[in-house]
């Protein structure tokens, strides 16, 4: 236990560990002190001069982002002196700011707007022409609007300290200072540059991809896990009109800190795929027909009942643990069988040197570790293709979850008697399938992914379900219950997770509701112990 320091902030007496800064101490009791250059993930240069507070006995106002707490310190964040100074500093920020909020992407989530609204002057006093720097393409997805920049240098420090590839720098000095890249090189050489857009407190660094796409206040934010590799970065999905518009990092010190990679950030459009299976279908003699869920599940149950012990399954590591486990569980009930998955694997990891344990991992699917733990085996090549010879030549029942088997020719003759496709996307396997059951994707349902390091993390529905799709765990749970003879089926995702935790020893002791928005480590009873 670190030694505590007692101090008073605006009349509230608090105790914080020694070495805490005044700004962090204030944050710990819910007091936000305006700041630009300070970012919890980076060093503090104390140069924006917005977080200055009055400390009793100090001759000058002190920057709260670098000043450490002292015993019996008395801090005033809202004293007349501090307030007046902040109003003054904000006036300086606006001296050359273009005030182009109506066409600025940051509008609505802009610190300058918020701070000026809270503490700025009512009217400007500037009669001077504003400095014009214009727009600059920094490379990659990053666009720079120089006029909006507040020179907090967070972006420069991110590239120096986190990516450790100093592609950005402050050029010139005084009011001619501007952030710039070096000659021909730009942020296209970086792998994590998108983070500078997130940490830019104003609209100076914006995403080209997101440019003028949506207003910040129209977007809904849903916590989620990045589906693009096995690192399991915590993200927020920003959606509007049932479409994902962008991916933003969500802080989790155990996984990704404040950051995500450009690869993960940029790969979201596939989440909006429109070629979706929307209704359950069952093949009757030659034709496949849309039917009700009840009918589909009942006829599938009958079909499976007759063919017990003869099933092969192909699953996708893009589907949550609960769904994958439901497949394994079903096969167990039917008498066993191999469950395989395929996953693309790149040649190298893309490490963020400044943050321990963060990288774009080689496995480009979010739940590879989860699939392994559940007992699925990996087949195929590093492109996530092939390896299905056993399945294609299988003569009994084939169950496919998620994997659209995209490389399989449309007219391929399966040897199987029955093919069940639980999928979200239209697939050529549907030509041969006897049962087509629409399931939800990971951004439409609750569930968990297990990252490469064994951290189980929750998902929340971010977009509406299309058509009649249901989570696979629910469909398969119902099916299994029928096959087991009236066994009560699963009705909630936590039951589905519990079923998994009861069977897979690594998850023992973890309860779904305890995962929260930060997740829990497998094989680690301490992290899941309740107080």
């Amino acid at each position, binding site marked *: 236990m670190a030694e505590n320091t007692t101090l008073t902030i605006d009349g509230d007496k608090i105790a914080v560990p020694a070495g805490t800064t005044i700004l962090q101490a204030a944050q710990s009791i819910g007091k936000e002190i305006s700041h630009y250059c300070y970012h919890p993930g980076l060093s503090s240069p104390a140069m924006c001069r917005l977080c200055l507070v009055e400390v009793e006995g100090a001759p000058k106002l002190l920057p709260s982002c670098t000043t450490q707490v002292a015993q019996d310190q008395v801090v005033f964040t809202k004293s007349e002196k501090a307030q007046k100074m902040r109003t003054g500093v904000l006036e300086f*920020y606006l001296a050359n700011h273009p005030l182009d909020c109506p066409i600025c992407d940051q509008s609505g989530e802009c610190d300058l707007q918020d701070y000026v609204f809270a503490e700025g002057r009512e009217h400007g006093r500037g009669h001077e022409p504003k400095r014009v720097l214009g727009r600059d393409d920094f490379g990659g997805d990053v666009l720079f609007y120089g006029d909006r920049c507040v020179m907090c240098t967070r972006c420069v420090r991110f590239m120096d300290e986190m990516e450790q590839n100093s592609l950005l720098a402050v050029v010139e000095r005084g009011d001619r200072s501007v952030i710039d890249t070096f000659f021909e090189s730009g942020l296209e050489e970086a792998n994590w540059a998108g983070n500078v857009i997130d940490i830019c407190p104003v609209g100076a660094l914006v995403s080209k991809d997101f440019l003028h796409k949506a207003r910040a206040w129209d977007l809904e934010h849903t916590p989620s896990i990045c589906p693009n590799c096995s690192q399991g970065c915590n993200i927020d999905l920003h959606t509007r009109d049932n479409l994902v518009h962008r991916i933003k990092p969500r802080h989790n010190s155990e996984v990704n800190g404040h950051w995500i990679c450009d690869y993960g950030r940029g790969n979201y459009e596939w989440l909006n795929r429109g070629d979706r299976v929307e209704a359950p279908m069952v093949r009757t003699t030659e034709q496949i027909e849309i039917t009700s869920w009840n009918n589909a599940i009942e006829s599938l149950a009958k079909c499976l009942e007759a063919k017990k012990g003869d099933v092969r399954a192909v699953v996708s590591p893009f589907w949550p643990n609960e769904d994958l486990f439901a497949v394994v569980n079903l096969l167990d009930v039917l008498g066993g069988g191999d469950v395989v998955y395929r996953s693309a694997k790149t040649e190298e990891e893309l490490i963020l040197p400044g943050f321990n344990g963060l990288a774009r991992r080689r496995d480009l699917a979010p739940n590879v570790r989860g699939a392994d733990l559940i007992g699925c085996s990996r087949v195929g090549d590093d492109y996530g293709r092939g390896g299905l010879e056993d399945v294609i030549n299988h003569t009994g029942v084939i169950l496919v979850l998620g994997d659209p088997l995209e490389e399989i020719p449309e007219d391929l003759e399966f040897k199987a008697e029955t093919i069940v496709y639980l999928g979200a996307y239209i697939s050529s396997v549907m030509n041969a399938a006897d049962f087509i059951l629409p399931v939800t994707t990971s951004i439409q349902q609750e569930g968990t992914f297990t990252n490469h390091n064994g951290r189980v993390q929750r998902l929340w529905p971010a977009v509406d379900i299309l058509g009649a799709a249901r989570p696979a765990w629910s469909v398969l749970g119902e099916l299994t219950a029928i096959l087991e003879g009236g066994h009560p089926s699963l009705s909630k995702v936590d039951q589905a997770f519990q079923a998994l935790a009861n069977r897979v020893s690594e998850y023992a002791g973890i309860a779904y509701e305890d995962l929260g928005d930060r997740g829990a480590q497998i094989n680690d009873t301490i992290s899941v112990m309740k107080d």
Partner: protein
Amino acid sequence: MGYPYSHDQEVPIISKYLGDPEARTLEGWKARGGYQALEKALEISPEDVIEIVKDSGLRGRGGAGFPTGLKWSFMPKDKSRPHYLLCNADESEPGTFKDRELIRWVPHLLIEGCLIGAYAIGADHVYIYCRGEFFEATQVLARAVEDAYSAGFIGNNVMGSGKNIDLTVHVGAGAYICGEETGLMNSLEGRRGEPRVKPPFPAAVGAFGMPTTINNVETLCAVPPIVKNGGEWYRQWGTEKSPGTKLFCVSGHVNKPGNYELPLGFPLHKLIYEIAGGIPGDRSLKAVIPGGSSVPILSAQECENCELSYEGVEEAGSMLGCASVIVMDESTDIVHQVMRMAAFYAHESCGQCTPCREGTSWVTQILKRIEDGRGTEEDLTTLIDLTDQMVGTTICVLSDSVAAPVQSSIVKFKDEYVAMVRRGEKLGIT
């Protein structure tokens, strides 16, 4: 001797050999008693050297006037990490030209001072950071350093004492802000010349992250005579709070501009009218900037009884700074002068802190507008307000330096500003 002018009321301690080409050479310097103080210092303990300097009451000559001996005593005694002595030769305050002359004429005095200082604080390396534009001075200094190395005053086993002290002359690239001590350290390390947040102070974390002391050229030049003659000897000049002598850089409207070494506490009036030969054409005095462009302007009336000591100038309403006396007679356009100074600071602001980055240029633009006849009286209030917001809110004091002349001139010469505004109104261009 003095250079280019001298006066018999001067007390030439460090400026004795200004203008004497022979004093530049090692042989010539030794013939003038050079390196005797170093020899003496090496015979006594570093603590004793610090004690002597403390006794002398020598205050930093770079502008802030911090007691030198006390500053040296802040250096940690633990010598497991390298210690550095930096000599600030980035003299760029408008109106100041003392360090350049010292380096040009008595480089060995500076080197000797540096070596004594390094010995006192336990530094094994001295960096002299020269302003980028000091072409001739840097050449003279580099030659002197070379000579001192070959004579065994610098390097391994300094004067047979067993001490190793190295000395490097580093040339800056001509940025005013690199004269700020921590900006200088950043620049020396190859970073952007931006002042650092204090704490930590240089004595704990300075150049290259190591304990560092930084002294002005003139301060270090005063050290050898003090060590040689003792602290009491130095106190025979100056006042109780400002002991010793100081170089006064007199410029502007005087007949004999130049450096004059005078005891601290010397009357300003006398400096202008006797030492510097008075104002040309017998015009009357309008204003004086007593300590370099970053201090408040004194009106002629305030100059009357002003004593040139740290406390004396403060009493008169300004600061002694680096004792760069800029004299302005009645023909001076104060608004233009203040605008020129503000423009200088706007150009030299490093751009880190918002109040300075935006404030210095904003203030300059308003002043330019007033000068153009497009100002209003409201602008004067705005100027006071803006400069208020620039005082004490930044990492270093550059923005305070704009506030001082702007605010003091608006208070003391308001009618000149108002006249400019009126002229514009008459012309109908406001």
